[in-house]
């Protein structure tokens, strides 16, 4: 099925102040894949993500989401099929109640009345946040906000889920819950993260960015075993692959 493919060809992006954030990035992600994009701060991860739903326009190269090449005319369809969850949930939850936030997307798509209600409750159900439906965002904990933020995107039934640093700032329990939740999704999933243990658990494929270019693209396990590569890109092995801290000190 072609309509869930994310194809990026030679993507270039230069910011107005002259910084070249992306220098020719190419990859192809197929339906149902779960891919992590990792790299040092400033490597271009967030910039890449912002291209995927058309918020930023490429300086060069092209992007294809499903059947549609990314351009001004196809933006509405692309924004419907690519659901993006940002780093700071407060930027994403901009309505006074959870219901309003989750309903914002479908309302813009034209859903009203009972259909809308059902859409909202279904989305909240899937993230386990149905009980928060009438709450105000500022009353939610960090983990709850993240789950609701995901629901705001799920309510639009996207084909592709893109998340920027999903476990950032979560306490261990909330983090565990979120990972369990994300494992259940069957969408194409693209994450950026510094949480390499989460990447190990959730993503079978990893793309490593270095200074705006793709440095490596392959199975997660292989990449995490290449210590030289990781060091070059200012990364480390995930903690779960680093060996026991107690035994390690003994020998």
């Amino acid at each position, binding site marked *: 099925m072609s309509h869930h493919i994310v194809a990026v060809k030679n993507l270039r992006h230069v910011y107005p102040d002259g910084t070249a954030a992306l220098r020719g990035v190419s990859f192809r992600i197929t339906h149902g894949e779960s891919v992590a994009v990792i790299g040092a701060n400033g490597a271009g991860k967030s910039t890449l993500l912002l291209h995927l739903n058309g918020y930023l326009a490429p300086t060069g190269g092209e992007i294809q989401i499903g059947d549609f090449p990314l351009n001004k005319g196809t933006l509405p369809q692309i924004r419907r099929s690519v659901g*993006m969850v*940002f780093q700071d949930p*407060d930027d994403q939850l901009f*309505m*006074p109640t959870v219901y309003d936030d989750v309903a914002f*997307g479908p*309302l*813009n798509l034209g859903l009203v009345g009972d259909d*809308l209600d059902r859409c909202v409750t279904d989305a909240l159900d899937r993230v386990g946040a149905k009980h928060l439906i009438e709450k105000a965002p500022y009353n939610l904990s960090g983990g709850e906000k993240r789950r609701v933020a995901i629901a705001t*995107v799920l309510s639009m039934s996207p084909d592709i889920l893109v998340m920027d640093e999903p476990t950032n700032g979560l306490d261990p329990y909330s983090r565990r819950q979120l990972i369990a939740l994300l494992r259940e999704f069957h969408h194409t999933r693209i994450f950026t993260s510094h949480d390499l243990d989460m990447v190990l658990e959730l993503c079978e494929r990893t793309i490593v960015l270095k200074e705006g270019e793709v440095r490596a693209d392959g199975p997660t396990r292989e990449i995490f075993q290449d210590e030289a590569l990781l060091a070059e890109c200012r990364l480390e092995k995930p903690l779960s692959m680093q060996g026991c801290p107690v035994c390690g000190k003994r020998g």
Partner: protein
Amino acid sequence: MASIDGALLDFQRLDRLAAGNTMLHRLDPRAKVLATLVFIVCVISFGRYQLSPLIPFFIFPAVLIGTADLPAGYLARKVLLVCPFALAVGIFNPIFDTELLLHLGPLGVSGGWVSCLSIVVRAALTVSAALVLVAVTGFPAICRALEQLGMPNAFAVQLIFLYRYIFVLTEEGGRAARARKLRAFGHKGLGMSSYSSLIGSLLLRTWQRAERVHMAMLARGFSGVFPTRQQFRFGRAEFLYLSGWSILFLILRFNNVTAFLGSLITGQFP
């Protein structure tokens, strides 16, 4: 910073009261907003020297607080602390208006004092009505009610956004202010230049946040017009509420119930 954190907590508390589930809370917000407006107009329509006819109007906030089970002490404290401007101006009435108006036995009371007290009572009434309105309706519902009563959508959207981000911004501002206070050893640090820099950087971060929120809105299909959901219905209960209170207010406005009660009582004693 004591003032910013305290104000925030206060804000949140009043806001949370609106999440209650009494019969009063469930009424359509339009009825509540309109009833409050009729109340305020009646109260302030009294002449300058009218004091006793104002007093029965306390029945409105009293009944509402009782029915909605609101914390009376908390609201009373808020009422006592407010309207400094009204009182600051009103306190001049006894200075400028010294003509004696009434006599309580041997004591002569000037018109200025009567009107000053009238101002105090008006302040208490109007402020408590406003607070009770927020406590039983909630800010988003008030905005929706006003929109249905004719307020432009762009302004309603502005109010809702403002309300949503007040907490975020006051927390951010509070953190920045606290950091500044901790590094200010003595008064020099809390002067105008550090304030301007603090505010300036808060402003820039705010601007960036607005750009990110805009991103999020676009990502979910925002096209310039804000959809609002219809939720409430104006039914019989609302009609009874609004007309009942309005009729009462009009009766109280044009009849001096206080004097009537007073003469009843004094009539008992020969």
